[in-house]
């Protein structure tokens, strides 16, 4: 789960990381009032959960409260890569002497959190990594000892932070790691971390991603979720504890198991179709779950056919079939339904579905072909 810049920075501040003392505005008038209170030049920053807002005109300097109001007026309501701006952050403008990148993320391959820094601050770190990887410094963090002071000295040295700022830099890096631990973050970054005209360090921009698996023990962070960056159907699916991702195709997929769901999408594509979604309905086959999932799939107007691919393991296929039939009864879809059941009692299951006039198949290939045909002739 992504956090907004302002959410990230306010969270950083709880761990004693210095941030600009800004506030959030949802109207131009609020922007004026905040800029007036700050009393100097401010930056008006669109809060959207997508990168590249600067280039899109979503970040503007304002020298007076009037200018701040005008900039907020222009930015609020703006469409940035398909997302509408509903909030702007009004930060006091910092005099930037130097800027670096500082981030902490999970290094899957090393099974460690890793501290990443670069003298190239304020730009997209993935681009730096791709074009000038030598400008990036990485250091793994021992999960039992945490960040050690000497590591931050070493990094500071290598990204060009002067000795006078090493103590601050240590506090900030340590604060960021404490924040990662306390927030179950899989990414926390300060970009840029700025050396100001006063000679101190300041976290001017921030970003955090929270581990979805940890949201139940992070209720305060979970409550900050902004669903504006995801399709409504995904929000609804998550609330129903279903794993659903909307795609651009025309064949809805309902599968039990994440790996099998991906494989199903792949096979649909292999036979010339395009999947409309990823959907894992999980174990068991309660009619209620199937019905909710079906509603979510059908809420996408592009869907021209629905493919069920179910492996009956410990749950028997005939039971799954009954669940599907009960769900169809409830939802009453008007697109073709193709079902492929495999595993225990698969024959009985298929017969039940065939009786209900569903198109049934024995193999995944066959099912995918049938679904593609059905979608094309719809």
């Amino acid at each position, binding site marked *: 789960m992504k956090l907004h810049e302002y959410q990230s920075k306010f969270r950083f501040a709880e761990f004693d990381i210095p941030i600009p003392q800004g506030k959030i505005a949802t109207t131009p008038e609020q922007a004026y009032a905040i800029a007036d209170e700050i009393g100097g030049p401010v930056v008006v920053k669109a809060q959207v959960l997508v990168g590249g807002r600067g280039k899109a005109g979503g970040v503007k300097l304002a020298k007076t409260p009037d200018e701040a109001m005008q900039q907020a007026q222009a930015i609020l309501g703006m469409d940035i890569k398909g997302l509408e701006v509903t909030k702007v952050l009004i930060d006091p403008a910092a005099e930037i002497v130097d800027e670096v990148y500082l981030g902490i993320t999970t290094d899957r391959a090393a099974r*460690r959190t890793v501290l990443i820094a670069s003298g190239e601050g304020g730009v997209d770190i993935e681009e730096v990594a791709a074009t000038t990887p030598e400008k990036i410094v990485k250091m793994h963090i021992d999960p039992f000892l945490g960040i050690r002071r000497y590591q931050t000295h070493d990094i500071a040295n290598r990204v060009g932070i002067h000795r006078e700022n090493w103590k601050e830099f240590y506090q900030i890096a340590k604060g960021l790691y404490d924040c990662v631990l306390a927030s179950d973050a899989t990414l926390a970054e300060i970009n840029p971390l700025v050396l100001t005209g006063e000679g101190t360090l300041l976290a001017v921009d921030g970003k955090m991603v929270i581990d979805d698996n940890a949201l139940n023990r992070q209720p305060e962070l979970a409550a900050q979720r902004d669903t504006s960056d995801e399709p409504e159907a995904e929000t609804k699916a998550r609330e129903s504890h279903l794993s659903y991702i909307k795609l651009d195709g025309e064949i809805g997929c309902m599968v039990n*198991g994440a*790996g099998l769901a991906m*494989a199903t999408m792949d096979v649909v594509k292999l036979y010339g179709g395009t999947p409309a979604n990823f959907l894992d309905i999980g174990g068991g086959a309660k009619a209620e779950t199937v019905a909710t999932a079906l509603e979510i799939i059908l809420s996408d107007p592009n869907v021209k056919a629905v493919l069920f691919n179910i492996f009956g393991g410990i749950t028997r296929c005939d039971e799954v079939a009954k669940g599907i039939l009960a769900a169809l009864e409830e939802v009453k879809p008007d697109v073709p339904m193709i079902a492929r059941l495999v595993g225990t009692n698969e024959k009985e299951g298929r017969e039940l579905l065939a009786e209900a006039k569903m198109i049934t198949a024995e193999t995944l290939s066959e099912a995918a072909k049938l679904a593609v045909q059905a979608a094309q002739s719809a």
Partner: protein
Amino acid sequence: MAILVDKNTRLIVQGITGREGSFHTEQMVAYGTNVVGGVTPGRGGEWVGKVPVFDTVRAAVEATGANCSIIYVPSHFAADAIYEAADSGIPLIIAITEGIPVLDMIRVRAYLDQKGVRLVGPNCPGLLTPGEAKVGIMPGHIATPGPIGVVSRSGTLTYEVVDALTRRGIGQSTCVGIGGDPVNGTSFVDVLGLFEDDAATEQIVMIGEIGGTDEEKAARFIAERVTKPVVSFIAGRTAPPGKRMGHAGAIVEGGVGTAEDKIAALEAVGVKVADHPEQIPDLLV
């Protein structure tokens, strides 16, 4: 012969009195797995079917000589259950639990590495050595003894492949679900090494998916160490980048972890990669 679990496995079930734990204990016992005990703190002295329940893993190990533990406890308590098993001298731990936060797993894995304890999972279907031991939630009846080692990051996709093999009369030595989390206990490389050294395994089926670089590491390992034929399938060719496809680990991030990269890496070292899972039996020698 087989890998990891067999007739000599003396299994305890952590979380045995829970809904999942008691159901699957019954299933494992029915399959013939030697389930010697279970653990639920405060329920010591009770029974689940014919399986005695203990308060702690240590007590269970002392009473039963258990050498393997399977964990069905909820995600919030799973890390603690793994530590308890490791501290009690269990050398092989299988964690079925889904949804353990990654920071917990980083610590768990570091701790187990220090102790020399093997963990399979979490977020996995467990292990199945057909005819000998079922340690997990795989449907036992779809498998049959034979020469194919199966290793997978997935659940039902594995069942699908195992079922397809069995229907074609091709049996399995051991089926290993390593789980779909970004940081886990046992990797493809670990299992490939075990299969390579296992006399009962003649060929290997490896089922990967998008996210991370475990398949790429496996490809390097295959080139260096594996003499047995390997057939693979990689799920997620159509998965969009930046989206988590059900499994916590199934995500393409920063251009890393695409199905294309994995397939290319595997094919480059001579692994046959199937276009769809049903093709796998055809690609075996």
